[in-house]
C-alpha cells in the first residue's frame, strides 16, 4: 500500500492481452460453431477444416477477418455516391449510407431530447409542484421498457404522413430525454448548500444563481447523462427501423440480414453500429474535456 499514486498505471498491456485473447478464442470457435454446415461434413484434417471454416459463405459464426473484409468491402470498396435521375445520391449499396441514415436520426433525436430534457429539468428545479408531481413519474418511467413503444410511434406518425427520419428521431428523442432530465435535476440540485447560502447573502436573483452556480455545478452530471443518452438514442434509431420493414439504416440491414440468412452482413452492420457508438461517445467525451478545461477543471 504505497503512498505513491498507482492509478495512473497504464492499462494498455492488460487490455491488449485480453483483446488478443478474445480474438484468438473467436478464431478457434469458428470450427465447432460451423461444424454442422455441409462444406465441413466431409472435410478431413484439422488445418484443412479450419481453413474452410474461416472462409464459409453463410457461416453460423464468421471469422474476424471475414467481418473486417466485409466492412471494408461495403464501405471503402463500394462507390459512395451514384448517379440517379435526381442527381448524385448516396449509394444504398454502401454501408456508410445506412450508417448515415441511422446516425442522422440519432443526432436529431438526441439534440431534441437533450434540449427538452435540460429545459424540463430547469423547470422542475424551480417549481415545487412539478418536482413533486412529475419527477416520480419520470423516475418510474426508467423502469418501463420504453423501447417497446417504438413500433407504435412509427405507425402513429406514419398515419399522419410522417415517415423516415422523423418517427425515428421522435423515438430517439423520447428515449434520450429521460436520462438527461434525471441527470440534470440531480446536477442542478447538487450545488453545495453553503454555496447556495452565499448566493443568498449576495441577494442574487434566481437566474443569476442559476447561471453562476447551479449550471456549472451541474455540468459533470450533464456530460455523464449525455453519454448515456447518446448511446440510448442510437439504440432507439436502430430499433425504430425494425417494425415496419424499413429499407435503409443499420437496423434495416440487421433485419434483412436476419431474414435472408446473410450472417456476414449482420455482423458488419453490428460492427458499424458499434463503431458509430464509439465515435459518438468519443465526441461527447471530447466536448466534455474541452468544456472542463475552459472552466479550469482538472484534466
Amino acid at each position, binding site marked *: *500500500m*504505497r*503512498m*505513491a*499514486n498507482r492509478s*495512473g498505471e497504464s492499462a494498455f498491456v492488460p487490455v491488449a492481452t485480453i483483446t488478443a485473447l478474445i480474438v484468438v478464442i473467436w478464431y478457434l470457435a469458428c470450427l465447432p460453431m460451423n461444424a454442422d454446415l455441409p462444406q465441413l461434413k466431409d472435410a478431413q484434417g484439422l488445418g484443412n477444416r479450419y481453413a474452410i471454416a474461416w472462409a464459409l459463405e453463410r457461416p453460423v459464426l464468421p471469422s474476424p477477418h471475414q467481418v473486417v473484409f466485409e466492412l471494408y468491402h461495403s464501405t471503402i470498396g463500394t462507390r459512395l455516391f451514384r448517379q440517379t435521375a435526381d442527381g448524385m445520391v448516396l449509394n444504398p449499396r454502401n454501408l456508410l449510407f445506412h450508417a448515415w441514415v441511422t446516425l442522422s436520426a440519432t443526432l436529431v433525436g438526441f439534440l431534441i431530447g437533450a434540449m427538452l430534457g435540460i429545459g424540463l429539468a430547469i423547470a422542475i428545479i424551480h417549481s415545487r409542484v412539478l418536482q413533486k408531481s412529475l419527477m416520480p413519474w419520470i423516475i418510474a418511467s426508467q423502469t418501463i421498457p420504453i423501447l417497446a413503444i417504438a413500433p407504435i410511434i412509427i405507425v402513429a406518425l406514419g398515419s399522419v404522413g410522417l415517415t423516415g427520419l422523423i418517427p425515428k428521431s421522435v423515438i430517439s428523442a423520447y428515449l434520450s430525454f429521460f436520462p438527461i432530465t434525471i441527470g440534470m435535476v440531480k446536477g442542478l440540485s447538487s450545488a453545495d448548500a453553503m454555496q447556495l447560502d452565499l448566493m443568498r447573502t449576495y441577494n442574487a436573483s434566481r437566474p443569476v444563481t442559476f447561471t453562476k452556480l447551479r449550471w456549472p455545478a451541474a455540468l459533470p452530471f450533464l456530460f455523464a447523462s449525455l453519454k448515456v443518452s447518446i448511446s440510448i438514442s442510437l439504440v432507439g434509431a436502430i430499433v425504430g427501423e425494425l417494425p415496419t420493414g424499413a429499407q435503409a439504416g443499420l437496423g434495416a440491414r440487421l433485419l434483412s440480414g436476419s431474414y435472408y440468412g446473410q450472417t456476414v452482413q449482420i455482423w458488419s452492420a453490428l460492427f458499424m453500429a458499434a463503431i458509430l457508438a464509439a465515435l459518438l461517445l468519443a465526441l461527447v467525451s471530447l466536448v466534455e474535456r474541452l468544456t472542463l478545461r475552459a472552466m479550469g477543471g482538472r484534466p
Partner: protein
Amino acid sequence: MTTGMAIEIRDLSLTFQTADGPVYALEKANLAVRPGEFISFIGPSGCGKTTLLRVIADLEKPTSGSITVNGVTPEAARLGRQYGYVFQAPALYPWRTAEANVMLPLEVFGYSKAERQERARRYLAMVNLAGFEKKYPWQLSGGMQQRVSIARALSFEPALLLMDEPFGALDEIVRDRLNEQLLRLWAETRKTVIFVTHSIPEAVFLSTRIVVMSPRPGRIIDVIDCDIGDRRTLDIRETPEFLKIAHRVREGLRAGHSYDD
C-alpha cells in the same frame, strides 16, 4: 536482538518513490520500547509518525534498517495477531452492530460463538458502552464509535496496542474523557501502547515516554521521559511538572522546524 523488548527499531529508513521524486518518510529511526510502556509519537504532518506506526504493524515495508516486534518480524507479529490497531476514524462496518463489530477479529481468528459473545460484551462494558451492543454505528456518536473501535482492538487481548490519532476527530471535551478512560484501561491491562498524536497536552498526559519527530526527512529528534507519576487525573495538566515537559516537547518540535513552512 535484546530480549524482552516489545519493539526494537534500528536505523530504520523508508523512502517512497512518487511521481514528484523520492519522499524520505523515515530516516535512520532508532527506538527501543519496553513491555508495558505508553509511548507517544508526536510531530506535525509529514514527520513520519503514522508511517513508523504502520511499519510496526507491517502495513508498510521499510527500505532499510531492522525492526522486531515481540522478538519477531512485523509480518510474523501481524500473522500471529499480536497487536490491535486503532485508526484515525472508527472504521466500523456499518452493516454490523457494535457487538458484531467487536466480534469481527474474533470471527477471523476462529473463536467459538460463545467466546465471541462473552468477550464482546466484556470489552464493550470496559469502554463504558454496556447496553449499546445492538446499536448500529450510525446510531452512535463519534466518541462512542471510536470507543467501539478500541473495544474491538482489545477483544482478542493482544500485548501491543497501536493507535493512530484515535481521538483527532473529536471535540476537546469528549477527548478529555476518552483520554482518562484510555489511561484507566492501560493501568488495568498494562499493555504496551504506541500512540500517535499531534496534541502536546494529550501526549504528555498519557505517556510514559514521548518520541518527538520532525519532517523532511522524517526523523526522531528527541525522546522524553514523562515521569509525572502513575495516578494521573486531568488536573495534572496544570501542574508545573506537566508544563515543564510540555515545554520541552514544544522546544523539540521547534528545533525540528515544525513551525516553519
